[in-house]
């Protein structure tokens, strides 16, 4: 019925530029704030660009990446005396030459120039030392990887558990849904500020609580001030804050599974575990892929918590890649270095996402 459609609407829809016009706002914004910066960062990462500098920018090739990723291995042999016997200290341990003798102005080891000791282990009488050119970056990298490796399964698992629990027709179940979702709508900055009080070393809620339930046996810990606990404290808070969001995604996945499948399983005699194993879990497959990828990406972008709570400390124990990128780019005015970290992060997340998609692909 041609006469039913207003003529104006029709001609507008048919106009060749109409589509482009409608997409324009989105395209402009995306270009300005996403695609542009991305390409810029990519370009900067091969230069020595600084935030403000009187000197002209130069192309430096891969030097930024070499600087960040440079690692070396050094095998130290124990010092020997003239007879060839190993020199031992008072406690009987062999003595080794100092690492800095290899990394400072040693013409025999030019590739180790400027590196610092990262970690090491004993190998028979020898000592193996792994060196890195940029220790802070390495710390940020390992912290971030650790953060992702723990947050992804824990947050996904916890969210699934919550989703299973609240996916029931009970009176008042919506109250629980709301409560679990609430942290999600609060800004992570606000959450981080609040949790600083919880983690406070003297009068923090957590210390008080632990001391209360252990009848005063528990000795207060400065959760954010100890290198051994700071990252875990941030991790726990991050899981708590994000779990509600992923719970809702799981929930939507759960609700796409037809009730009749569970009823059929009931009649066939499936136990609750078997119903989960054979009906729920296979039905959640696509949701699981989505959640895993989303959590991984979110976890890789760990920044606000660190920025508000610890600034990367103590002793670099909470450094993260994004935090380092921002630090270098703006605090140290080294835009090129920050960009290089961003590019590396991009490649890392891309690689992991592709791997996850591959591992969780539909197999036939």
């Amino acid at each position, binding site marked *: 019925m041609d006469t039913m459609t207003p003529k104006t609407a029709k001609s507008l829809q048919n106009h060749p530029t109409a589509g482009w016009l409608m997409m324009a706002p989105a395209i402009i914004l995306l270009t300005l704030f996403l695609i542009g910066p991305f390409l810029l960062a990519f370009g900067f990462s091969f230069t020595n660009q600084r935030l403000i500098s009187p000197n002209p920018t130069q192309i430096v090739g891969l030097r930024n990446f070499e600087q960040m990723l440079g690692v070396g291995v050094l095998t130290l042999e124990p010092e020997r005396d003239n007879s060839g016997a190993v020199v031992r200290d008072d406690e009987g341990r062999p003595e080794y030459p100092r690492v800095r003798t290899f990394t400072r102005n040693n013409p025999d080891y030019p590739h180790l120039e400027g590196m610092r000791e990262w970690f090491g282990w004993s190998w028979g009488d020898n000592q193996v030392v792994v060196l890195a050119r940029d220790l802070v970056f390495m710390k940020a990298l390992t912290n971030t990887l650790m953060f992702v490796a723990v947050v992804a399964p824990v947050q996904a698992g916890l969210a699934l558990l919550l989703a299973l629990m609240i996916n029931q027709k009970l009176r008042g179940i919506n109250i629980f849904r709301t409560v679990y979702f609430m942290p999600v709508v609060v800004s992570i900055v606000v959450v981080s500020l609040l949790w600083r009080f919880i983690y406070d070393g003297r009068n923090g809620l957590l210390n008080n609580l632990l001391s209360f339930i252990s009848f005063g046996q528990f000795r207060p810990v400065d959760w954010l001030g100890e290198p051994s606990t700071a990252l875990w404290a941030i991790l726990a808070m991050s899981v708590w804050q994000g779990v509600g969001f992923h719970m809702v995604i799981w929930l939507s996945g759960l609700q796409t599974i037809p009730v*009749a499948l569970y*009823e*059929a*399983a009931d*009649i066939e*005699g499936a136990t609750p575990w*078997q119903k989960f194993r*054979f009906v729920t879990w*296979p039905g959640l497959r696509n949701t699981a892929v989505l959640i895993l990828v989303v959590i991984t990406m979110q976890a890789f972008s760990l920044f606000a918590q660190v920025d508000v709570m610890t600034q990367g400390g103590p002793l670099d124990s909470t450094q993260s890649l994004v935090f380092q990128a921002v630090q270098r780019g703006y605090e140290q005015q080294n835009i090129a270095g920050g960009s290089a970290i961003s590019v590396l992060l991009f490649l890392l997340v891309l690689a992991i996402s592709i791997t996850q998609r591959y591992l969780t692909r539909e197999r036939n």
Partner: protein
Amino acid sequence: MAGLEFKGVHKSYGKVDVIKGVDLSIAHGEFVVFVGPSGCGKSTLLRMVAGLEDITAGELTIGERVVNQVQPRDRGVAMVFQSYALYPHMSVYDNVGFGLRLKKTPKDIRDQKIREAARILQMEHLLDRKPAQLSGGQRQRVAIGRAIVRQPEVFLFDEPLSNLDAALRMDMRMEISKLHQELGATMIYVTHDQVEAMTLADKIVVLNAGVVQQVGSPLELYHHPENLFVAGFIGSPKMNFLKVTAEKTDAGLTIAGADLEETTIAASGSQVSTGDRITLGLRPHDFIESADGRLRGVVELVERLGNETIVNVRLAGGTQVIAALDGDSHLEVGHEARFGFAPEKLHLFDADGQTIAR
């Protein structure tokens, strides 16, 4: 051996009564069809048998056992769902063998049973496929196969054919009927389609608004409906109803109304008194074209099907009726016509809709 016994079975959701007291016995091996309009509680009743819905009040016995508190899996029932309820990620083979696998049946026995079911349902070539790769009819076969392998005492079907097209529906109807003969198990089948009910059932249970209207064999229900609802529900095209007034005479009962000229029929009339308004029911196939018939009207629509002619007639009183006449009837739209009937074919219903005994 498993018959079923319903004793005063009730179901309510909160304050809403859905099943309002069902008493019913089903013998072992019987094919029983619950039929009724949409929303009358057929599925609810069936799901109570399966154990998927609690029984609010009353008692349900399967075999010798009261099963009100028995888990679905321990009731010895298998159910075929309208939506098929196949597990989408499992092959047909695994779908059919799912229950056996849960019961930890040894692999070789399981394999044998799955293949036997596949043979019965002629779907051996489908065993490796996933449900998404099957047509509706094939999916329904798999769902039935899954029920068969468990060798249940009672099969439950909830509108299993309503998602299939007409031709396939007829094939599957015959297959289910054949299956019943082969397996000899008790089957309870839910449908809103009275044709399905008539063709499949040993015994039909007509439900309306949560109340059993009548229980009987298809022909019993057709020839001796106990009330207006059953009379109108069973049979196609539907029975015609006319409002008339009764008068008791020596010869029996004289009835007349705006649509019907005075007719005397032999009936004891013990339940009727002169002046009662009663409803007269006459099936379309009981109309006879006849010059001295007591029904007069104008033909409004003619459908020639070859073997018979279906005509819509507006009677003198304004009531529209459907008559199924001979295939070579010469009636045309606009013709005035008269119809008669054999008096014994009439159904009479009192003001409450109950059948008046003749």
